[in-house]
């Protein structure tokens, strides 16, 4: 069951300005120099879902 979930989920790392990437190591590296003015946040979403939309929804929730 867990394996199925892992296979159908994907992890993205986004910043507060809406930019996102899928590489955790790169996200940490960029945070280490405060590249984007905020620290990244991890978000797990179903594979195939629109990442940008999911990130935007998260940001709207946070902004509300």
């Amino acid at each position, binding site marked *: 069951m867990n394996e199925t979930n892992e296979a159908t989920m*994907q992890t993205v790392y986004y910043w507060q*300005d*809406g930019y996102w*990437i899928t590489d955790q190591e790169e996200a940490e590296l960029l945070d280490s120099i405060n590249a*984007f*003015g*905020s620290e990244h946040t991890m978000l797990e979403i179903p594979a195939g879902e629109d990442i940008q939309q999911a990130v935007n929804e998260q*940001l709207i929730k946070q902004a509300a």
Partner: protein
Amino acid sequence: MNNTNAQQQPETWAEQLLKNKTAGELRRMHPKIQFFYLVSAAGAFAASFMFVGGVWLGANWHPSAWTTENWVAVGIALLMVGGITAGQYFSYSTGIKSGLMIFAKAVVILFALGSEISQTMEREAETVRNRSEQSEVFKATVGAIQSATNAPVQVSPVLADAQAAAATAQVEIDACERHRSKGQARVDKCLRIERGNLAAAQARIQTIQDQAATTAAANQSTALAMVDQAKQLQFDEKQHFQGIQFIQKIFGVSAIAAAFIFAFGIIGTFESMFWLLGALLGAIGQALKAYGLTPQGRLISDEYKEMGLMQDAPAPEPKQPHNEYAPSQSVGFSPSPTLAAFNQYKQSGHPVAAAAASADWLAGKLSGSPAPTSSFSEPLHTTRHAGGLTDTRLFRYLYTGVRQQVIDGEIKPTVRPITDAVTTIMRKNASQIGITPELMAKPQRQQIAESILSGLEKEGVVKRNDIDVGVGKPKYILSPKYLADLALRSTWNRELKKHCIDSPADDVLNKTADQDAIQRIINKGRKSGLGTAETQLSMNLKSSSEGAVKPVQKSSQKPLAKGEDETLSKPLAKGQSGLYGEWVAAVSEKQCRPSVNATWSWIQKRISNKETGSRTHDRTRITSMQKAFFSRAMHEGLMQQNPNYRNGGKKYIWIG
């Protein structure tokens, strides 16, 4: 995957022409090639007609001697060969690739090759015959035959003497009775003598006649042999063209086989060039069509209008998903798909006609519906995963771009400024959309502007100017609803600008904005009940959801390490923005070149004294940072890979 497929599929002629030739060059090439194409068609027709006509007329090419049957045969040959040549002419230049078309082409090519090769061989044989009959040897042989056959019949004197002797002996035999008076013995003696003489004479005659018959037979044999020789000399194999004799010797084939190879070489080349001209003409036509032009250099839209098809042109229905402008799922950016966009663009047919159709579609789609969610800030390069721009998307891009500028009050809703805006948008984004304003005539851009205005009117963004009517007065004005929004936004813009916040949102400036000030404005808006600031924020978010990555500020920043160099940057000093924002600003202000080395050094200098000690920023890590910066900048449409990059040149171009 797409790249792999693209590499596997060779470019068509039209695609290569598009890359190598301008519209003007193509337009100038077209009539020249068409002229020679017509000449080739005429040559092919003549050669085939000579063959078919020759077969049916029996080489009787003297119209004055033609019977009714001959004239009918010639008429049928004309129609038949004309049809076949027309088949060649039109099929070569259609550009249609199908099994049936290939079969049809093969049939007409086989006929053309067969008839023209046969005709060529026939002509060459006629030449050989003429050369042979003009040769001295042939003439001498014919002369000898004539001499032999026309020699007068002469009676041999020996034969005449023998015949005379025989006649005399016969007379003497008849006169032997005159010796009767001398007795029977004398008569018998006379008869014996004369009969002997007669026999001798007859024997001589027989001998002579036998000799004459033998001689005549010998002469007849000689004459017949000379006729045979004359026949051979009448078509002397040595009179073939040197080229044919060369082939004959090299390949060890018969003269007729060598003549066939020779003719095939000539006709094969001709037919190949005939086909080549047709195919080239078709490719040029396709390439010109991609430029929105007919082969005669006219606008296809004009042609459509003349044909009354402009309004009826099928409106391409965009079927892109809502997130079509979203970044790719794995990387966040990919190189600009200029060529892919260009290919798709040109394959989509005439841009203006389709754009006008798109305008109608858009107008119909948007009429009575909420304003489109897309905006001018929608970065075109994010269409990368879609494989490039279609004409509909090009028009949508231009439309939304102009629409936003009209709504923002940046341009007046009249044809001229909108045409200028279209030109500017096309020029700024030429690498992404694959077309420059220079490739589209001004009337075409004006036509697009008119279509955009029409769409804006139907959408309700603008309305007819019924108030201030007159020469020189604008035909359209911004609708009251948008005028009110504009005024409201203008108020908020001023307020935002007081706090160094750029509005509409700007990637760089917003990063430098005071987040607390923004929050205050939002709160103020909430208290006032207007919610304008929220709208502004929502607008940003909404745009972001469309794929245009716009900064949505939030007050969660990582505090900078102590001991930060104060000269680094003002934004960082406040902790309002990140190093990336600084770098973008630095490149925009030309304080840092958008190159790998310059950016690497820039990053290295700024993080050298910010190390936490937990991890050392080695060269590899700095390179990763530099790549990440480039990745994001390209994702945001601030920079792109230089399509004309060469060793020593700029690999990246800053377009922000």
